[in-house]
């Protein structure tokens, strides 16, 4: 078979065997249009201590040091995150109100 003929043949065979069982689990979808619920979820940022690490060889002490610093500065970072979340959530509320108003205007 020539390479140019392979795709048509594969499609024909796939149509014949249309009995494949779907596999559950990880499925990728690009994020193009994000819904309001998703935005609200993202609006409140949370620090993941598991992502604080060192890529160096024998980096365990460095990882421990970094995590210690995160812990020691949690009052300040917690306050910053709270302020940012407050702004994000209020902004989203405004956006939701505007969307609702536009919807009502369009329905008139």
């Amino acid at each position, binding site marked *: *078979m*020539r*390479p140019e003929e*392979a*795709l048509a*043949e*594969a*499609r024909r*065979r*796939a149509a014949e*065997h*249309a009995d*494949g*069982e779907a*596999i*559950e*689990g*990880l*499925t*990728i*979808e*690009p*994020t*193009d249009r*994000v819904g309001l619920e998703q935005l609200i979820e*993202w609006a409140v940022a949370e620090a993941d201590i*598991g*992502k604080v690490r060192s*890529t*160096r*060889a024998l980096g365990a002490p460095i990882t421990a040091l970094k995590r210690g610093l995160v812990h020691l500065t949690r009052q300040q970072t917690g306050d910053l995150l709270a302020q940012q979340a407050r702004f994000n959530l209020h902004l989203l509320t405004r956006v939701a109100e505007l969307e609702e108003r536009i919807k009502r205007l369009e329905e008139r």
Partner: protein
Amino acid sequence: MNVWQVLSGAGPVDAVSRQALAFRERFAAWGWGGRDVAAFIDPRAKGFEPLRALRPADDDVLLIHYSAYAPRLRTVLDLPNHKLLLSHNVTPARWLWDHDPPIALQCELGRRQLPEYAARCDLAAGVSAYNAAELGSDVVIPPILDLAGLRGRTPPSGGLRSTSPQSVLFVGRLAPHKRQDEVIRAFALYKQRYAPEARLTLVGEPLNEAYLQALRELADRVGGVEIESSLSQEQLAQRYANASVFVCLSEHEGFCVPLLEAFAADVPVIARPAGGVPETAGDAALLVDDRDPAVVAELIALVQSDQELREELVRRGRARVEHYAPDRAAVALRAAIERVS
């Protein structure tokens, strides 16, 4: 002439760092000087200096490798030197927001920043015509690849590839846009229908631990799937030697070096025609844009069973490797640098 290469980040295995090192070898062979600097250097990377080491003379040329958001390189643009920007492409953030928001943000900002950087350089180029076109340029500097280590190997048994266990391979970062999830699903159908003993090997550095774990869980549902990271060049060459077909369903590629690696190792290629893939693959790969994994599974089966098809794909693959011969790429590199100097 002195050419300083400037990278946003230098790592031990990433394609951009390897390109910069390959370019440096050519510069040295041409009697050119200069050094290679990066805004961020992974401790495992060799051959790069911090950005503060960048002290070019007025007539030195700066070659900026652009592959990620690089605010620290903004100061480089203010230097009076002639500048060539080489775009290695930046992944669209839409594939990453759900899986790694910081990286997605970097990509989003990187793609927004790229046109500004390109406009402030004397010449913008891409590693493919696809990349160059994104910048409104037609200057292409293909990667300089040493593929010699991939040629002429045989599977560990020493037998012919056609008699070895059916082994599917994909090499690329373990990241959402590379669509290893689709490769696994297509492989599962192929395995179920044609080859229960078949193996799939996915090689690449994970985006993060959570994504790797999700991929492993999917792989475990299917069985026969191995996920490997941080391989040496020797180990990678062996994975290609063991493979009977290479399947790339990536949604975004600026160039896709692994296609050429597969061609060099005489491994037939099935690929999604995304981004720069059609340009790199030419007529040597079976390009499939179908979303149905069953079609990909059937293509895998055809490649495994049809000797004429395999031989033709291997023959065409060797021609693509010739097309991207290092000396030809080096000519394009030299011409672009001499154009700005």
